[in-house]
């Protein structure tokens, strides 16, 4: 952190700090945010790389969830400030708050904290580790948001609810978790929480708005760049109406004049998906690291080869990239640990079209017989990416989806290709 300054705020002296950042220049954080950032659980994010083993293809991809979390807080703040200052009438009418000025300050803080903490529950090696999360009572696997909620409630409740640190703005920990998790939103949220969730999690959220720029900057590619100031300036808030013309819901939209920046945002993510996040070498390392973590988990106290569930959050938080890499280093005789250690990753021998044809499927079946040891990466299982065609575009009183306004975006197809890998490239 650099440039600590003291300012007078609400009758008392407040220390603010400025952190140098590759995207925003400086990110301002107040005392409460400093206390959260300094917490060992937040510092753990320094030990989780943003893009797992993408650095095996792009050596610059060594940045972490730590700087991304700070970046999302800044991006979310920029988005929040823009809509609250430019769409005041629409928002004020919808929320019907007794004191809009106080509500505005309070939700600014809630949005900042939710953005700052949105990735605190990530597993080692980010999404690659998520396959090792145990099952919930509804038979679906836990996700990093479930761990995030558990961590925020367990470690950060006191800091979040400390009104002295929080400049006398009363916030409950559930105000923050309601922006991050769907069930928390239903149990603890209000109409305001449901609206501001769109800044944290939607097709035009602060998370993807930050990581596209940040990943591109670190990796040294241009695919993920879009016109950030233009995107923020074109953010708008509109009331969507039902067929009967009744009030339906307040949506975060992009003004019609920003149609092209919306297109470029979607294209940027599409390009990054195809050329970076799903590069064939990065994807096979996701497979190897998942298998390697399974191999080493028993040696670090997790016999069932799964991460501990969120109700054992202390145990889960001991795991990060460093602990896993240390265990891999000690277990080099194991199949996938050795492959990672010696860079003996499986090789791609066949890739289908984005929408596989009958010929593609036949070829995959043939290869399965020829190569008993293989791995097939099925893109349809990548839950975190689909082209963002449903971004709302606002024109006058109307709200449209982006794909209805742009043939270019409508033409993007969901990537359902399959990639066949074998231990050696031999045909």
């Amino acid at each position, binding site marked *: 952190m650099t440039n600590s300054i003291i300012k007078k705020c609400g009758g008392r002296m407040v220390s603010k700090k400025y952190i140098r950042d590759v995207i925003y220049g400086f990110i301002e954080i107040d005392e409460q945010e400093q206390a959260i950032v300094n917490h060992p659980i937040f510092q753990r994010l320094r030990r989780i790389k943003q893009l797992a083993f993408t650095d095996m293809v792009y050596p610059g991809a060594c940045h972490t969830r730590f700087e991304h979390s700070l970046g999302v807080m800044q991006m979310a703040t920029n988005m929040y400030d823009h809509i609250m200052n430019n769409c005041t009438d629409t928002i004020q009418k919808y929320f019907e708050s007794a004191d809009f000025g106080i509500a505005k300050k309070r939700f600014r803080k809630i949005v900042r904290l939710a953005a700052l903490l949105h990735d605190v529950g990530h597993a080692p090696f980010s999404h690659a580790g998520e396959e090792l999360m145990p099952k919930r009572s509804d038979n679906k696997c836990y996700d990093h948001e479930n761990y995030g909620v558990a961590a925020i409630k367990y470690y950060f409740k006191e800091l979040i609810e400390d009104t002295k640190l929080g400049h006398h703005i009363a916030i409950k920990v559930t105000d923050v978790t309601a922006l991050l998790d769907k069930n928390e939103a239903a149990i603890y949220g209000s109409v305001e929480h449901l609206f501001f969730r769109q800044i944290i*999690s939607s097709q035009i959220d602060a998370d993807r708005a930050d990581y596209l720029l940040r990943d591109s900057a670190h990796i040294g590619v241009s695919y993920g760049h879009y016109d950030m100031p233009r995107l923020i300036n074109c953010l708008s808030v509109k009331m969507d109406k039902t067929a009967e013309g009744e009030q339906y819901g307040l949506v975060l939209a992009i003004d019609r004049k920003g149609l092209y920046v919306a297109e470029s945002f979607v294209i940027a993510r599409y390009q990054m998906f195809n050329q970076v996040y799903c590069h064939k070498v990065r994807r096979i390392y996701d497979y190897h690291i998942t298998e390697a973590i399974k191999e080493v988990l028993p040696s670090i106290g997790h016999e069932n080869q799964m991460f501990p569930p969120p109700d054992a959050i202390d145990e889960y938080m001991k795991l990060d990239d460093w602990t896993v890499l240390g265990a891999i280093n000690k277990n080099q005789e194991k199949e996938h640990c050795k492959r990672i250690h010696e860079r003996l990753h499986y090789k791609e021998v066949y890739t289908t079209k984005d929408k596989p044809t009958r010929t593609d499927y036949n070829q995959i079946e043939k290869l399965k017989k020829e190569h008993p040891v293989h791995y097939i990466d099925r893109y349809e299982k990548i839950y975190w990416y689909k082209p963002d065609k449903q971004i709302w575009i606002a024109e006058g009183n109307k709200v449209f989806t982006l794909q209805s306004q742009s043939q270019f975006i409508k033409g993007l197809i969901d990537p359902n290709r399959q990639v066949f890998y074998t231990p050696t490239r031999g045909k």
Partner: protein
Amino acid sequence: MDTYRLREYAIAHVAKKLSGLSKTGMMKAMYLLQQVYKVPLNYEFSIYTYGPYDVEVLTYTDIAERDGLVRIVQYDLAEGSVGYKIYAKSSKLDDNFPKECTDAIDEIVKNFQDYTARKWELTATIVYVYNAHIMNGTSMDKSTLCNRVYELKPHFDKSDIRTEYDKLERIGFLECPS
């Protein structure tokens, strides 16, 4: 039938039985099919200002249109907004569509066929809030549940929320201690 085909055909079957259903109605019908009738559509519904929502439902509606199963018609609404109606296009649907899914769709048609988008939104939100509490292991009575829904959706009258709750309880979608 795999998940992806099941999603596409569930949309087509609902469009056939609820001709001209709105996109909102389709979204909430898919939510109820999955949540209440346990049809394995594998969507990840989340709650927003417009109720339970997973963008994937819209994606699969488009896929169903692309594959010639449904037709989506855009039309102008009051005050300049735009709406969409979904119609079945193909009279012959997949014979392998599971019977339990067809039965579940018939139940939904029976209970909600005259619903407006606004009523779909309310129904699905009540079920969502109820299930979130169940998942969380939090017990609540009818009054608490209805108040919770009102906090999330203050544009609905409290009496409308209670009336809809009573209907959902009557048809066995939920049950809170009184």
